[in-house]
Structure formats: structure tokens, C-alpha cells
């Protein structure tokens, strides 16, 4: 992975005015998000606000009715999902979706499906097992036998096998014990320091805003607020709606 660069902000991912429909339901309305190279940006909002749908539209799993998604200035509009990966965008989906019948090692190998060279795959595998020692201990176990936290680590490691430039994370803290939640957020920060740009979707807005540079607030499929993470954390209406009374 590259070293974190302190270069001036350059948009890596640009979501421009997208609309997404589920049948007749207008799930995402005129959504625009910018993620600059090297940033951690979070998309917060309550259950059903459209966070997962937004990520699905960005990684092209879901069709976009209008608007566009640009990765490094190039449109992803007509790119099929399996080619989005090759452009450098990795997506860790909601509920992790690891391959339960494959071992930890095989899951990581699947992550490197687009990588041609065996030497590259081997070195990335070593890198991941160093970054996630817990996975190294469990390397021969089937994915389905791991705990929720371990599965989340595996899902992140599997995505990192692609050496993405930007990583989309959907609710990485979901269903985890507080201890594991903290570890996952530590890992996200570590990955970011190694040069991977992050777009993080979270219901745990408190934790997300603690590590993010900027944030967007999503409500009923539309952005209702955005700004620096520090400003959003101190905003009273956001505190009331998403952070609980402190």
C-alpha cells in the first residue's frame, strides 16, 4: 500500500446528483457526495435512510436512474460491478457476506480474484495476515465458523486483497461487541493511514464521526447536512437525532 500523502485535496470519488429506484420507490434522490484522496468520509443516517442503497449504487450493484458516479474523473455509469473492482474501488457489503463454506485463506484468495500474479497474491496474503493476526490463527477455519468480529475483519481483509484506492464500508460495527467495534475502527484508521481512501456508512454515528474527516447526513434518501466531522459532532440537531443525548 502507498504511504499517506499530504497532497492537496483531489476528488477520488464523485457522486453527482444520482437517483435510484427500487421498483416504484424513489430510494435515493439527487444524492451528491465527494470523497477526496486520502480522506475518511462518513455517511450517517438512521435505519432506512438509504445508506446501503447509496453504496450499492456507487459500486454499480444497483442501477442508477440519473446522475453519474466518477472514480478518478472517469464515469462508472456503464461499468459492470465486477469491473468496478478493477478500477480500484472495493466494497465491503452490509452483513459482511463472507463465503461461509470457504476457509479464511480461500476467502482471501477470492478477494484477489482480479490479481493475475501468484507472487502478488502471496505477498498480499502475508500482508493481510500480519495486519489481522486473528485471521492468521484461524486461517484453515471455514468463514462461517468465525465470530462476528472475525468475520468483519475477514471481510475487510478480503476487500484489501484487491489493493483498492478507495474502500466502501457498510456498517462495519453492526452486531459487534463494543470491544470489537473499537478494534474495527482502529483498523479503519490504520488502513487509511496506509493510503486507502475510505467511505464509511454507519449507524454508529458517534464512532464514525470520531475517525472521519468529513461527514454527510442522509435522510429519506437525500443529503440534509454535510460538513467537517468536528462540526457535525457539535451540531445540536445531529446530536439529538443520531448521537443520542450526551
Amino acid at each position, binding site marked *: 500500500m502507498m504511504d499517506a500523502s499530504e497532497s492537496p485535496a483531489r476528488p477520488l470519488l464523485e457522486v453527482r446528483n444520482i437517483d435510484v429506484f427500487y421498483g416504484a420507490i424513489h430510494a435515493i434522490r439527487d444524492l451528491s457526495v465527494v470523497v477526496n484522496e486520502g480522506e475518511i468520509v462518513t455517511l450517517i443516517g438512521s435505519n432506512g435512510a438509504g445508506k446501503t442503497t447509496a453504496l450499492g449504487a456507487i*459500486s454499480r*450493484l444497483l442501477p442508477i436512474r440519473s446522475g453519474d458516479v466518477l472514480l478518478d474523473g472517469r464515469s462508472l455509469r456503464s461499468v*459492470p*460491478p*465486477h*469491473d468496478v*473492482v*478493477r478500477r480500484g474501488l*472495493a*466494497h465491503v*457489503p452490509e*452483513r459482511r*457476506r*463472507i*463465503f*461461509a*463454506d*470457504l476457509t479464511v485463506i*480461500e476467502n482471501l*484468495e*477470492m*478477494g484477489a*480474484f*482480479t490479481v493475475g500474479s501468484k507472487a502478488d497474491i502471496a505477498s498480499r496474503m502475508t500482508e493481510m495476515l500480519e495486519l489481522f493476526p486473528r485471521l492468521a490463527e484461524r486461517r484453515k477455519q471455514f468463514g*462461517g465458523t468465525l465470530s462476528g468480529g472475525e468475520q468483519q475483519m475477514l471481510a475487510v481483509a*478480503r*476487500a484489501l486483497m*484487491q489493493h483498492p484506492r478507495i474502500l466502501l464500508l457498510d456498517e462495519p460495527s453492526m452486531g459487534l461487541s463494543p470491544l470489537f467495534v473499537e478494534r474495527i475502527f482502529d483498523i479503519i484508521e490504520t488502513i487509511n493511514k496506509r493510503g486507502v481512501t475510505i467511505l464509511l456508512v454507519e449507524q454508529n454515528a458517534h464512532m464514525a464521526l470520531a475517525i472521519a474527516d468529513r461527514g454527510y447526513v442522509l435522510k429519506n434518501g437525500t443529503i440534509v447536512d454535510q460538513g467537517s466531522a468536528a462540526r457535525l459532532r457539535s451540531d445540536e440537531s445531529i446530536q439529538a437525532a443520531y448521537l443520542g443525548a450526551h
Partner: protein
Amino acid sequence: MSFQLALELLPPTLADGLILGLLYATIALGYTMVYGVLGLINFAHSEIFMVGAVVAVELLTYVLAGSPLHPVLQLALAMIVAAAVSAALAGLAERVAYRPLRRSNAPKLAPLITAIGISLFLQDAVRFVESLFGQFIRPFPSMPFFDIPLPLTPNDSIPMKSVVILIAAGAMLVGLRYTVNQTRLGKAIRAVATDRMAASLMGIDVNRIVMLTFLIGGALAGVAGTLYALQFGRVDPFSGFIPGLKAFTAAVLGGIGSIPGAMVGGIVLGLIEMLIGTFVPILTNNAIGTEYKDIFAFGILILILIFKPTGLLGRPSTEKV
């Protein structure tokens, strides 16, 4: 029945049961693999198998007959062409019938009915074409090499074709198992079978893998069709139905979606069928004849499924939320 007689009948019965079982297993793989990646029972598979058998028999009868090639080479050539035709047919069904239904998010019953439609279409299409050239029941051409007896026990023998079928079908199963477990393509098939969306996020082109699954299943059916025609000596437009149904049963018996399950299920079903077909008539003094063997075979299937609904090697499906 004397113990002596049973002992004498056992080896050839086991050999025939194993052959039948390997053929069921080879066909069953096509059902189980397509079910694995799509959750679809491709009922047209039995006709894809039948077309492979027809192609092989026609080739051997009209093109390869009298050629100086060794009979085994003739059979191999016929098998390769049959596999190619069956694979192409399976791929065509996926491309023109099943994929458009997936794209339009059709309900699950639609592809199933489509499969039955393709099945009937192929039966009648083959009957129509074959009728243009005479009878639509075609015997397997006489190839004396395959009838050469080989000693099995001191006082019993099996024909050469049995050995050829055992080797050919066995090689198919071993080859498939290697492909699925060891190769990149096989891992992609397993990934798509486990979770299509996650596989797509890994950079796997799901539609391409689904197509490859149909092609592999079709090719196996073509090979099985050739060998089945060799073993039973004839083929007609409707001769795919019963072996197809049995192979589907074998896939369910082993655990639908499971590749080792299809292999085990096929072999178990073939052995049960042959053992019952041989020994029940003897034990009952022919009061219950061989023709009742399917009642016992399917009775055992029902019993196994009552006690193990997911099949012999199937795992309980974890419902995805």
C-alpha cells in the same frame, strides 16, 4: 436362494450398479451445479443429455462406421462432439431463455416452466428431425470390440464396454472435482454458488460463471449420453426423461447444490437399483419382478429424505436475511 448363487451374482451386479451410478452421477452434476449457482432446477437437462446420445449414435452409425480408427478412438471422437453439442445447447438455453428472465426479475416459477418448455421442445424437435430420416428409435451401432468379454470372477465376465464406461465416467468425475476444488474457475463457481452479490464484488463476472456452469454441465451430459447409449444399446427422443429424472433424484439424494453429493447420490442410487433389481426377484421367487425396482429405489429415497431432508451430503441452508 442359495448362498452360492448370491455370491456368484454379486460381482456383476455391483459392476453394473456402479456403471449405472457413475452415469447418474455424471448427469446429476449438471442439475446440482446449475442449482448451486442459480437455485434453478434445469429440467431441460435430461433432453440435453438425450441430444448428446443421439448425436453420438448418429456419428458412430453414419460417419465413423467403417473408419480405420480404433473403436475406442471412434467412441472418444463421438463423445467429444456430443459433449460440444450438448454444451452448446445448454449454453443457448441459458443465453436465450434463462438469463432474460433473471434480468427482468421474473418470479422463480417462470424459469422452471421455461425449463419444462425447452424439454418438450427438444423432445419433439429431435423426433421431427429423426423422423425425416426414418425411425426415430436408433440402435447403437454394432461395435464388436465393446462386447469382448473380460474375466471378472473365475466363472463370470463383463464386456469391454463396462470397463470403458467405468474409466470414462470415472475420469469425468475426478476431472470435475479437481476443476471445482483446485482451479481459479472452480473457486469462482463456488463463490457464485455461495453468494452471487459477494462474488460480483470480488470482480467475478457472475453471468460468465453461470454460462460456464451450463457449458460444463451440458458437456458432462453429452458424455453421459454417449456412454448411456453404449451401455443400453439404443436411444430415442424420449429416452432422456427417465435417466434425467433418476439423476435429478440422485442430486436430491446427495444434497442438491452439493457436487460431492451428486456423485455419492448417483452411485448410491445406481447400486440400490441394480441390487434390488437382481436380488428381490430371486428372494421372492419372481413374485416381485425386476420391473418393480424403482419402487424400492424411490422408497429408499423418501426414507432418507424423511430422516435427512437436506440429502446425504447437503448442509442445512442458512437462510440469508
